[in-house]
């Protein structure tokens, strides 16, 4: 049998995500940094979806300067097996990306635990779902309805 040569690729990867940051999306620079203390306006618990886990608490909060944020409490967890997830505040549990007024992109994250996503203004009352979304595949990993 003729000798068959296999070629193997040498695998060297540089992870694009900055490991020391939990938020990968830095395009919210126009929003001032919120203060550390805040009051909780709405809250909800995450449920997993599509066979994937999502746990913990999501909150809509306001600080002393009347700045609004979406907070993921320390107990937040999901899976990052695919690399990272994108967080949305949405009218519906599955965001309707064709209608720009029905969702706000919060950030791309790759770690569990506490996160705070500052908002430009008070979100519309119809935006009541904090969604964990796998953007490349278009699959929901979980959501929390905040009330």
């Amino acid at each position: 049998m003729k000798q068959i040569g296999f070629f193997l690729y040498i695998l060297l990867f540089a992870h694009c995500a900055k490991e020391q940051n939990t938020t990968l999306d830095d395009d919210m620079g126009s929003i001032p940094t919120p203060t550390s203390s805040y009051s909780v306006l709405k809250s909800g618990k995450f449920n997993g979806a599509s066979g994937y886990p999502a746990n913990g608490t999501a909150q809509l909060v306001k600080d002393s300067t009347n700045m609004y944020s979406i907070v993921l409490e320390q107990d937040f967890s999901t899976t990052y097996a695919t690399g990272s997830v994108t967080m949305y505040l949405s009218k519906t549990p599955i965001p309707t990306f064709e209608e720009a007024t029905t969702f706000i992109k919060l950030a791309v994250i790759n770690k569990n635990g506490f996160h705070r996503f500052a908002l430009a203004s008070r979100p519309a009352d119809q935006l009541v779902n904090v969604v964990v979304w796998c953007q490349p595949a278009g699959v929901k990993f979980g959501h929390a309805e905040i009330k």
Partner: protein
Amino acid sequence: MKIISSLLFCFLSCLQLLLCQSGWTKGKGEHFAKLDFSRLSTTEYYSPNGAKLKTNRFIQNSLNFYGEYGFRDRLSIIVSGPLWRQNAFETTERVNGIGDFRFDLKYRLTKNTKWPIALSIAPEIPTGRANAFAQSKTAAQERINLPTGDGEFNIWTTLAASKSLGIGYVSLFGAYNFRTKYKGLPFEDLYQIGGEIGFNPIKPLFINGKIRSQWATGESKYPELGFVRGDGTTYTLMSAEAFYRFTKRWGISATYLTGNDLLASFRNIYISSFFSVGIIHEFKK
């Protein structure tokens, strides 16, 4: 019984989906080699818990190799796997790499070649890219891991029996996959049963039909192993293949794949059209 009209393909599958073990081995010095190309394009996915989802379009191109060599009259060595695999979603860049290769040592237990029974032991080596991040086309911070291999060493053990039927044959097999770990997380073992029936209606033409069902010893316990590494994948697949020998040693093949949940249900598997074409080289004494 739910019948899937579209064809099936597993996210991390390779040529093993089309392999159906037989009781025969190659004669000493004989060989059979096949190189085929397949393309997957689908939006239908069954999650690890069996939920049917519609996703962004997933595309996988593969160049697969299968080679069997008769080391001794009753002992064959088989090498199989993807020489090249390319993965992407419609929303991401493409990633490329070699897949995981499998090395079978197959021994025919019986001297009788009309009712052969063979046992094979096959380590599957993690030669593929265990991590291959595809960047989003629209957002630099977004990416998804689409590995070309599962990053794990495992061993298949297969017992197969065949019966010659004049111009045709039939084969049955059972197989067990002892899986190991990836970064300390254990995979669920897998087991399969399958069968094949083949005919040689005219001298240069061979036709076969195959069925293979796979189960897991449990549901995938770790999301890190599920979608990305094919943990707990279950399915029933059927294929029809035509192989035309246009010279004494060379031939071409075409294969069509479909499936249903008659035996094993769908878990952690992409559903897609699957059609492959290949070229074959064979040497017989």
